[in-house]
């Protein structure tokens, strides 16, 4: 049973990834990408990593994609893009993404209702014995042997922040830009 769920999720992931790459409209591409992320998150769940699955939904499909959508929306301001807005909000364009995520939803409900539980997988050559890693275990590892890496990861975010702020500053008028920049920083 797990196998069937896995194959459906894998197919959803592959199809929506292909749709992302070939989409003409940025928002459609983003929606398909969200579906890919959700499908992958379901596979994580099937593999016995509920924490990773949750993070995939919250951080990836949530935070990172919202960032993308903000930027896409930001670039579409102005009178010229008002015409494009009509196309952007057509429901028929995103019906594929809707169907794919509906398939995922059915699967998730099926798993959660207890028809299939991840623990059923048993191990033989090349197959999984699921060993669930708890969040506690992960936390002990992260703040034990890996403690410097947590700091370095923070530095990486800081570096990205500095680069992004510096690059994306409005710099048409240098004087104005400086004043504006000082207010935002």
């Amino acid at each position, binding site marked *: 049973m*797990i*196998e069937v769920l896995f*194959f459906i999720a*894998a197919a959803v*992931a*592959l199809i929506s*990834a292909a749709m*992302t*790459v070939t*989409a003409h409209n*940025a928002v459609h*591409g*983003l929606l398909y*990408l969200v579906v*890919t*992320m959700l499908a*992958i998150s379901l*596979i*994580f769940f099937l*593999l*016995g*990593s509920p*924490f*990773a699955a949750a*993070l995939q939904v919250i*951080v*990836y499909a949530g*935070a*990172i994609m919202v*960032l*993308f959508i903000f*930027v*896409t929306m930001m*670039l579409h301001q102005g009178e010229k893009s008002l015409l494009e807005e009509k196309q952007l909000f057509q429901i028929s364009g995103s019906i594929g993404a809707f169907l794919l995520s509906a398939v995922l939803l059915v699967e998730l409900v099926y798993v959660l209702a207890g028809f299939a539980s991840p623990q059923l*997988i*048993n191990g033989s050559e*090349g*197959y*999984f*014995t699921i*060993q669930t*890693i708890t969040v506690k*275990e*992960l936390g002990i*590892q*992260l703040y034990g042997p*890996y403690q410097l*890496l947590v700091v370095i*990861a923070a530095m*990486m*975010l800081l*570096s*990205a*922040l500095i*680069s*992004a*702020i*510096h*690059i*994306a500053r409005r710099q048409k008028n240098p004087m104005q830009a400086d004043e504006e920049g000082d207010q935002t920083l």
Partner: protein
Amino acid sequence: MISIHWLLFLSLALFSIGVYGVVARRNLLFILLSLEIMLNAVVLLFIAGSSFHGNPDGQIMYLLILTLAASEVAVGLGLVIHMYRQHHTLDVDKLSQLRG
């Protein structure tokens, strides 16, 4: 039962779709999206390895890759905004001052 070969296959297929996107698309925004697909393919293998071998390293790697994805997207979108302001297009081919 999920065979590890199927997982490897799925991951490599997703990765190739991502590579295709990076190579074929000219819109910077879509290139960033394709990069996300590639990272997702990688992440899938790490989680699979983590539950296959039962050690937490793969999940830690997942957390770190998540951090990377967020930072990469932040910097990439910064460039997208900047490029759009200056050129009013996201076509990477329009950026071709550096030749020979």
